[in-house]
């Protein structure tokens, strides 16, 4: 237990070190510059592609490309020089994710299986997770391979709970939808309409940071919301790319009795979600 002196010392230390915390964002910016410098487009992509054309076309392309590449290279070199003058970043020791230019499929860029840990009711559980990839929507996610299955559709993907449940249980799983050029407020309205259409009512809305920073909306059934099998929807509206306004909307479908365990498993999977970018 903290006595009077300890309390005094602690408060004095915190008070006298407050100003240091103001530098948190600035320090992160420097770290980011050092460890994760922005990737540059490869100049070689065009050259590789050219090798597959006809000779005549290749000659023309070579002439055009050379002039373009020369211009690009000049631009890159200019940026590079400017960059070096300002920051002189070292090369990161960790390998960068291969850029889209290299055409390496996403599934070859990530481990096929990983293990995650969780502690339901204080007991440590190792969860075997399997990689799921959506090339078109440019994301990856790891799915609990013993209890869930990833299904891809044209408009949305679905991570379905596969443990035997029977018809008496509502559907359990997560839908994932991508939205381009979107605004958060529009998506919130869209979700609100969907909730109303499905005869559900909003129970809670909040900004949350786990499993990632997102706007969360929880909805219960309009009628008999607290029965053991009453459906519960939890939406996460997640901004994946601020500049390009790329959003993902995750809809967790649960039911009252299974909320605790299933929800934490779903959050564990969503923790692994990664938008790779175009």
């Amino acid at each position: 237990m903290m006595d009077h002196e300890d309390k005094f010392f602690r408060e004095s230390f915190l008070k006298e070190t407050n100003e240091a915390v103001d530098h948190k964002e600035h320090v992160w910016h420097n770290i980011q510059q050092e460890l994760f410098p922005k990737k540059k487009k490869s100049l070689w992509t065009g050259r590789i592609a050219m090798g597959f054309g006809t000779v005549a076309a290749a000659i023309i392309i070579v002439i055009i490309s050379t002039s373009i590449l020369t211009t690009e290279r000049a631009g890159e070199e200019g940026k590079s020089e400017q960059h070096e003058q300002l920051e002189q970043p070292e090369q990161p020791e960790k390998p960068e994710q291969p850029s889209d230019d290299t055409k390496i499929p996403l599934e070859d860029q990530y481990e096929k299986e990983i293990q995650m840990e969780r502690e339901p009711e204080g007991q440590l559980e190792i969860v075997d997770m399997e990689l799921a990839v959506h090339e078109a929507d440019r994301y990856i996610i790891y799915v609990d391979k013993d209890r869930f299955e990833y299904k891809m559709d044209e408009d949305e993907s679905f991570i379905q709970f596969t443990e035997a449940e029977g018809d008496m249980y509502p559907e359990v799983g997560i839908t994932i939808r991508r939205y381009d050029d979107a605004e958060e407020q529009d998506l919130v309205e869209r979700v609100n309409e969907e909730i109303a259409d499905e005869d559900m009512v909003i129970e809670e809305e909040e900004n949350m940071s786990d499993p990632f920073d997102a706007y969360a909306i929880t909805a219960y059934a309009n009628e008999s919301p607290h029965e053991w099998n009453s459906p519960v929807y939890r939406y996460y509206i997640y901004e994946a790319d601020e500049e390009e306004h790329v959003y993902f909307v995750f809809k967790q479908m649960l039911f009252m009795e299974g909320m605790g365990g299933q929800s934490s498993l779903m959050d564990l999977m969503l923790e692994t979600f990664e938008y790779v970018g175009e």
Partner: protein
Amino acid sequence: MQSSKERNLVKKIQKGNEKAFKKLYDKYASYALRTAFAMTKNNADASDIVQETFIRVYRNIDSFDVQMPFKPWFYRILINEGKRVLEKRKREAMPIESNENLDAIQQTTEKKPMNGKILEALDHVSDDDRTLMILKYVDRFTEKELAETMGVNVNTLKSRLLRARKRLKEVYAGGEFHDGP
């Protein structure tokens, strides 16, 4: 004990995940900055120490055993980096050939008035005791965490804590605090 959430986070960083590293940064950076500032009393040095610490953490995270607690490992890097910067500042402040200057600086420091500042009082305790006090009061380390970070057993740590706290109390002049009820 390290939570499963933190272990998962570290595992992700070991795979090069920037977002996970940012989460770790958000969790540790504020107290790391306070700690570094308490060591150096200089904002630029504190920022440099924390920046270098996180860069070292990222570059060496592969060698970290996720079954071990992360916090003591992190703070060992932070404290070592802090000591390195302090040594550098000392070397810059005086020519190497004049060892007498070290004594002069030491004496000047010891006579400095404290102005009611706990960080000034820290100048009058030994390096190890200073680190202990900072980790205990700024970062709220438990005795077990302190022992792990300092690489001593808990009993040794307890006696060091008592000594450090007594010394800090002695040098903190003016009677700003009183014995509890």
